[in-house]
C-alpha cells in the first residue's frame, strides 16, 4: 500500500521548508528572481498546458482553493448543504478577493469563467459532470449574494469541492478596455516588466515585493540557481525533481476513424522507451488510465511490450493532432509517426492550438489527438476527467454515480482504480505518460511549496537576506 498522496506532499513541503529553519521572515519583501527555462513570461489567461506554465500562471491568477490535502478556500468559501436527498455546494467569493484592477471577485466572475470553459469544450468540465444541469447553475439568475454560485449535485459526489480547486477553474476576467485577462493573484504586472505584489489576495500581499523573470538555458540556468543569481527555476533543471506526477498525456482517437490495426500498433509501442527518450523528466509511462500515484500499488504493473503489429495492407493515412508549442507532445507525436510509419500506417501530423484541436476533435475532423491534462490528485475526479476524454456522456453517467456512492475516500480510490483498469480497453483513450513539475528552488527562497497538484506555490514564500 502506497502512502497517501497528502502525506507525501507534506513530507515534500517539509523538505522545502528545511533551509528556512531559524530564519526570520521580513515583511519588506525583496525581489524574487525566477529563471524561466524554455518558458515565456507568465500570463493570467492561458490554458497552462504544462506544470511549469500552470505554476507561473498561478502567480497572477490564484485558484478558488488549495488542496492541502483537502480543499482550503483561497478565493471562495465552499459549503455543502443538503436539501432533502439532493446536496448543493455553495461557492461564495471571499470578501478580500480582488482582481488586479481592484474590483472585487464576484460569483458572476466564477460563473463566467466556467461558462467560458463550457464554450471552449474544455475537457476539465468533466470534473463538474456530477453537477445537475450545470448550464442552469451558471446562469446569472441562479446566482445570489448570499449563496453565491450554487452547484446542485445530481448524485453523491464527495470530491466536488476538491475538484473546484483545479487550476482550470481559476477565475479570470477580461479587462474592460481589452488587453490580457486578469485574475486574482498574488502578483500583478507592473513597471520594469516585473510582477508586483498585489493587494487583492484574500490573505494579504505576499512577502516578496516583486518578481523578476529572466530567460535562461540549460547549464546556465542551473549555475544561476547554484550561485544564487535566481531564487527559483521553472522549466528544465538538472536538480532533483519532486512532487506528484499528475500532468498526464493521452492519445484520444475516434474508433471508427482509425484504420484497422492502428490501435493494436499503438498499443504495441514501447511507451517506457518512448517516455525515456522523448519526454523530458520528471515523467513516467502511463500503464493505465490513471497514473501510478492514483492507483493502488501494483495495480497496473507495466506489461511487456506487445509484438509490433504491422498493417496487413497499405493503410489509409490518418491525422494525429498535437498542441503547438508543447515540446513533449511534439516529440511524442513525431516519434509515434515514425513508429507507425515503420509498421505501415501513414500518419500526418497537425500542430494546432488546444482550442483548435478541441474544435476539430469535437467535429470529427481529427482522427487522433494528443491531449495533456492536469489530473486532480484524487482518483475519482481524475477518472471522471479521463473518461470525459471519450466524449461519452452516457459513460460518465454510468460510472460516476457508483463512484460517488463510496463515502469513504479510500474505498472510493480503490473503486476508481478498479474501474480505471477495467475500462482501459473500452474507451478510445490510450494512456501515454505523466509528467511532473520541473522546478528548482534555491536556498534563499523559504517556504516555497507545492500544492496538491504538484504546482509551485509562493503563498507563504519569503527570501532569506
Amino acid at each position, binding site marked *: 500500500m502506497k502512502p497517501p498522496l497528502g502525506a507525501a506532499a507534506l513530507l515534500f513541503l517539509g523538505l522545502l521548508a528545511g533551509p528556512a529553519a531559524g530564519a526570520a521572515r521580513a515583511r519588506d519583501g525583496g525581489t524574487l528572481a525566477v529563471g524561466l527555462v524554455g518558458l515565456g513570461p507568465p500570463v493570467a489567461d492561458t490554458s497552462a498546458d504544462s506544470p511549469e506554465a500552470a505554476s507561473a500562471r498561478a502567480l497572477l491568477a490564484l485558484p478558488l482553493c488549495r488542496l492541502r490535502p483537502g480543499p482550503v478556500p483561497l478565493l471562495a468559501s465552499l459549503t455543502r448543504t443538503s436539501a432533502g436527498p439532493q446536496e448543493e455546494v455553495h461557492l461564495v467569493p471571499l470578501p478580500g478577493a480582488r482582481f488586479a484592477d481592484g474590483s472585487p471577485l464576484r460569483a458572476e466572475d466564477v460563473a463566467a469563467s466556467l461558462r467560458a470553459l463550457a464554450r471552449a469544450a474544455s475537457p476539465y468540465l468533466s470534473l463538474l459532470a456530477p453537477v445537475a444541469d450545470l448550464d442552469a447553475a451558471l446562469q446569472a439568475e441562479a446566482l445570489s449574494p448570499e449563496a453565491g454560485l450554487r452547484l446542485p449535485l445530481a448524485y453523491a459526489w464527495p470530491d466536488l469541492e476538491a475538484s473546484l480547486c483545479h487550476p482550470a477553474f481559476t477565475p479570470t476576467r477580461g479587462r474592460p478596455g481589452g488587453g490580457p485577462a486578469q485574475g486574482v493573484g498574488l502578483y500583478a504586472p507592473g513597471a520594469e516588466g516585473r510582477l508586483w505584489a498585489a493587494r487583492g489576495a484574500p490573505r494579504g500581499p505576499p512577502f516578496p515585493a516583486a518578481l523578476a523573470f529572466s530567460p535562461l538555458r540549460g547549464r546556465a540556468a542551473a549555475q544561476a540557481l547554484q550561485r544564487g543569481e535566481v531564487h527559483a527555476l521553472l522549466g528544465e533543471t538538472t536538480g532533483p525533481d519532486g512532487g506528484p506526477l499528475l500532468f498526464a498525456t493521452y492519445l484520444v482517437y475516434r474508433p471508427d476513424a482509425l484504420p484497422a490495426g492502428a490501435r493494436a500498433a499503438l498499443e504495441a509501442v514501447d511507451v517506457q522507451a518512448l517516455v525515456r527518450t522523448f519526454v523530458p523528466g520528471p515523467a513516467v509511462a502511463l500503464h493505465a488510465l490513471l497514473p501510478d500515484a492514483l492507483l493502488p500499488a501494483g495495480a497496473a504493473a507495466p506489461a511487456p511490450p506487445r509484438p509490433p503489429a504491422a498493417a496487413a495492407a497499405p493503410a489509409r493515412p490518418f491525422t494525429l493532432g498535437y498542441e503547438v508549442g508543447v515540446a513533449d507532445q511534439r516529440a511524442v507525436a513525431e516519434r509515434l*509517426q515514425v513508429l507507425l510509419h515503420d509498421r505501415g500506417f501513414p500518419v500526418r501530423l497537425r500542430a494546432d492550438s488546444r482550442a483548435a484541436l478541441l474544435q476539430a476533435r469535437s467535429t470529427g475532423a481529427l482522427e487522433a489527438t494528443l491531449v495533456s491534462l492536469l489530473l486532480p490528485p484524487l482518483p475519482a475526479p481524475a477518472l471522471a476527467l479521463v473518461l470525459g476524454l471519450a466524449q461519452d456522456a452516457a459513460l460518465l453517467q454510468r460510472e460516476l454515480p457508483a463512484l460517488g456512492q463510496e463515502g469513504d475516500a479510500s474505498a472510493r480510490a480503490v473503486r476508481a482504480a478498479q474501474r480505471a483498469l477495467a475500462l482501459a480497453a473500452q474507451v478510445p483513450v490510450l494512456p501515454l505518460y505523466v509528467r511532473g513539475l520541473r522546478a528548482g528552488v534555491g536556498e534563499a527562497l523559504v517556504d516555497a511549496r507545492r500544492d496538491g497538484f504538484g504546482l509551485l506555490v509562493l503563498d507563504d514564500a519569503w527570501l532569506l537576506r
Partner: protein
Amino acid sequence: MRLRTRLSLAFAALAVLPLLVSAPFVARRLRTTFDRELERRAESAAALVTASAQRLRTRVAEAVAAAAADKGAEELARALQGPGPLPPPDAARALAEGRGLSVLALLDASGQVRSSAHFPARAGDVDRGLLAALQAPSGVPVVADVQVAAPEGPRVWPALLSCRPVEGVPGAFLVGGVLLDGALAAALSAESGAEVEVRRGSQVLGSAGVASGRQLWRLVPLGADAAAAVAVGDAASAEAEEALLLALALVVGAGLLLSVALGVLLARRTTRPLEALTAGARAVAEGKLQTRVEGTAPGEVGLLVEAFNYMTAQLSATTTALVKAERVAAWEEVARGLAHELKNPLTPLQTALETLGAAQAAGSPRFADLFREAAPAMREEVERLKRTVDAFARFARLPPSSPSPVDLGAWAEQALALDAASPAVARETSLAKGLTVRADRDQLAQVLHNLLRNAEEAQAGRAPWVAVRVRAEGPWALLEVEDAGPGVREEEAESLFAPGFSKKPGGTGLGLAIARRIATEHGGSLEVVRGGRGGAVFRLRLPLLADGHGPAAPR
C-alpha cells in the same frame, strides 16, 4: 519600269547582295564561336562544382571531427550513457549549429541513434545510412541514404556523411554530413554560377540557379549513384549574338538606304541626258525642230546627245527647206486655183468685151442691145471674181480669235436654233451639256455653219438629213455633223480640207479648209469619217477644259 528606277534598284541590289550573302555565314560563325564559349563555360562550371564537391567532402569531414571533439559532444554522450535523465532526443542540434551540417546524430557502437539533430524522432532506432557511415573508415565521407523527417512521415534521402568517434567517450560516435538536396544545389550553384541539380539516378533531389536559354549539362559524380548536374545556358551569348545580328541587320539596312540613295543619284546623273533627249525628241515631234539638248554626258550618251543635236539641226534645215518648197508649192497651188477661178469669169468677160468692141467698131445697131444683154452677165462675172478674191483674202487672213469658255452642247443648241436651214432638211440633235471648251464663238459658229452647209449641199437632189451631236470622248469634246449624202472616199478625205478643193459648181473650196484651220488654232482637229447612213461625218474635236466641266484636256 523607268530606267532610273531600274538603275536605282540595280545599285541597291549590288550593294546589299554581298551583305545578304555574307550574313548567314557570319551568323553561323557567331553561333560556332558562342557554342565553343558555352562548352568552355560548362567545363569551367563542372570543374568548379567538382572542386566545390571536394571541398564539401573535406568540410564535412572537418566539421564532424570538430563536433566530435567538442566538449558538448562528450557531455551529451556521457549523459546518454549515464543512469540519469536522458537529454532531449534533439540535444545533438547544439553540436550541428554553426557547423553547416544538415545531418548529425550521435550513435552508439551498435549503430543505434541516441540523439539526432536532423531527425530526433529516430532516436532509439538504427538508421542504415548512418550505420553505413559508422562502418566506413573514420573521417572518410561516404554517400548513403539517411532517414529524414517529412510532413507525411519519414523519408529516405541521400547524404554525404562522415563519422568520428566522440573524443573521450568510448562507444559513442558522431555521424554528420549534408543532405544532397536543394540547399547543397544552392551552395554549388552559388560557387559555380551555374544551374545545379542534385540527382540520384533520374530523380532530381534539389536544384538551384537558372541557366536560361539553350542549356549544356555536365555531370559531376558526388558518390554512390548521386551526382551534381551542372548546366550553363547560352542566354547571355544568345543575347550578344542577337545584338550582333541586329547590328548586322542595321548595317545591311543602312547600306540598303545608302545604296538606294547613291543609286538614285547615279541613275539620275546617267539618265538626265537621256531624259533630255526624250524631251528633245518629244519637242521635235511637236514641231520644235530646232530643239537642242544642252549639257554634257560622258561616253556613248554624250555621243548620242551630239548625234541628236546634229539630227535636229539637220532636220531643222531640211524642214525649213521643205517649208519653203511647200510654201512655194502652196502658192503655186493657190495661184493655180486663183488663176483657174479668175480665168473662168475672165473668159466670158473677154468674149463679151470683144463682142461689144466688135459691135461698137462695126457700128452695129445692136450694140446697145448687145451691151444691155452682156452687162448683167459681165457684172455677174465681176461679182464672182470679187467673191473669189474675198474668199482667198479671208482664208489668208482670219481675224484674231477671242476664246472664252463655251458649253459646247448648250452653244450648239443656240446656234442651231439661229441657223436658217431649209425646211426640207431633217435635223436630228443629240447635244450633251456641260462639256466646256475654250473657243471663239464666232469662229465656232463659222465652223458649224460651214459643216451644215456642206452637209446640206452634199445631199442635193435627195431628202436632206443632218444629224448634229455633241459628246465627250476622253479629254475631248466632239461636235459631229453627219449627213446622208454619198459620203467621202477614203483616198479623198484629206483633200477635202485643201484650199480650193470643191466638188460643187461655183464653190470656192475654202469652207472646209477654213473650218479645219479654226479647229487647229483651237488646239483641236477636224476630220471626216464614214457615217452610219453611208454619208459623211465631220467631227470637230476640241480639248475639254479641266475646270470640272469634263475631263481635263491633254497638256
